[in-house]
């Protein structure tokens, strides 16, 4: 695993990436880990020219991020987990050339205030975007998602998917705005947005086997946050420990 530390400056000991001020170019296909270890403002560009898997994480920070993924060719898989104090984040994903593809999976626990804007730009034909966000909003938190999929007229045969779900754990201010701007017919598009609590039936089923309400929530939150997330052991363990702490 190539590790990239995002501090006041970008630090990495990997020869598989090129760092040019705030632009990180991935030179080889493979797995990369990015961790934001300091609070602050970040304005980064990631240049993708092949099949790249990025695992991003950040814990207990105040972040103001405006990042861009430039996918010239190949497939970018992003798996990202946040458990921060405050986040304001704008993500731009440019699918620049024919066949470029992104699979973006984000999960977070929102404690106070977090705002996310995700812009996906289908700039050429047969580009594919699959955007999945899943959040747990703690009581009294504020969590907003705006997801904009933009399709250019020449992007025939493109496939777009947006799925966002927020599980609320009490009174909180949440919203999801899924937008798809599609000027052509030859596009396959799907979106789904859900805000709500865990299903009563699920809670009853687990409690009917002797599991307390608190432990039931722990099981459901862990399952929800970790499912379909390609996380290696250390991050996975960190998330499990976090859930155990929040629902102590």
């Amino acid at each position, binding site marked *: 695993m190539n590790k990239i530390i995002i501090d006041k400056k970008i630090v990495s000991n990997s020869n598989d990436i090129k760092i040019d001020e705030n632009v990180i170019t991935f030179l080889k296909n493979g797995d990369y880990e990015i961790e934001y270890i300091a609070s602050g403002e970040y304005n980064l560009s990631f240049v993708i020219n092949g099949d790249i898997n990025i695992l991003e994480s950040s814990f207990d920070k105040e972040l103001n991020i405006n990042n861009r993924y430039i996918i010239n060719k190949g497939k970018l898989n992003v798996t990202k987990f946040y458990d921060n104090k405050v986040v304001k984040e704008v993500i731009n994903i440019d699918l620049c050339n024919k066949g470029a593809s992104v699979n973006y999976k984000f999960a977070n626990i929102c404690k106070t205030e977090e705002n996310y804007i995700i812009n996906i730009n289908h700039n050429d034909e047969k580009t594919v975007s699959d955007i999945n966000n899943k959040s747990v909003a703690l009581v009294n938190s504020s969590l907003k998602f705006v997801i904009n999929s933009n399709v250019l007229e020449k992007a025939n045969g493109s496939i777009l998917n947006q799925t966002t779900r927020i599980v609320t754990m009490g009174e909180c201010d949440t919203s999801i705005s899924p937008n798809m701007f599609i000027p052509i017919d030859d596009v396959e598009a799907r979106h789904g947005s859900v805000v709500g609590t865990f299903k*009563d*039936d*699920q809670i*009853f*089923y*687990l*409690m*009917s*086997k*002797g*599991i*307390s*309400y608190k*432990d*039931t929530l722990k*099981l*459901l939150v*862990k*399952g*929800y*946050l*970790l*499912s*379909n997330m390609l996380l290696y052991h250390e991050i996975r363990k960190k998330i499990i420990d976090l859930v155990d702490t929040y629902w102590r």
Partner: protein
Amino acid sequence: MLSIKNINVFVEGKQVLKNFNLDIEDGSIHVIMGPNGVGKSTLSRVIMGDNHYVLKNGEIVFDNQDITKMTTDQRSKLGIFLAMQSPLEIDGVSNQDFLRTAMSSHLGKQVGLYEFIKNCEAAAEDLKMDKNLIHRSLNVGFSGGEKKKNEVLQLKLLKPSFIILDELDSGLDVDSLKTVALNISKYKKDNPNTSILIITHLSNILEYIKPDYVHVLSNGTIVKTGRYELAKEIEKKGYNEVIGKTNIIIGDDDNE
């Protein structure tokens, strides 16, 4: 063991059980039969404490304790087990985490991984169940039969003293029905004081688990009680003829 005294149960304002009474003694096997929609599954949910079902009066006593106001998990820890008609699929929650948490809750201490795996694999083998299902998301992608076997696997691990089988036979092929029913019979033989309440609209499962009493439920109340022969009569003649013929009580049950 379990005594249900004069309960009225409502769902979304509609009455489902009316002045319902039932006494189940230690070690006995009772069957509630009836066509679809008469309140059979409601009964199982009410015993287990599903708060979607509003109990307006009466009480439910289990092992001399009034459980009417107890939470669902408390009832389970007292020894009541509900094998559900449609076990839920919960994506992301691994069957293993779920089973181990449930076992630990019942025992009041964390179950060691070795002990858990050993018990789990032995139970899965008894049920002719694919051991890999233990590591998958809870019931997700399981066949109907696998879901029911997973319920019985839980039963074998949690070792309840009162078992409710809600339509256990639905979704099971003949071989799977035989396997799960024989596992339950074996459990009952090993734990003779365990009582069982079987909820069904068919009598197939009763070939393997012979009941002491058979009750027929209609419009939210028990209209007829008898022995095993009553189930066979229903199978032969259908509910309309059996319920419509008479309301007299067959056998020596005095609950009604």
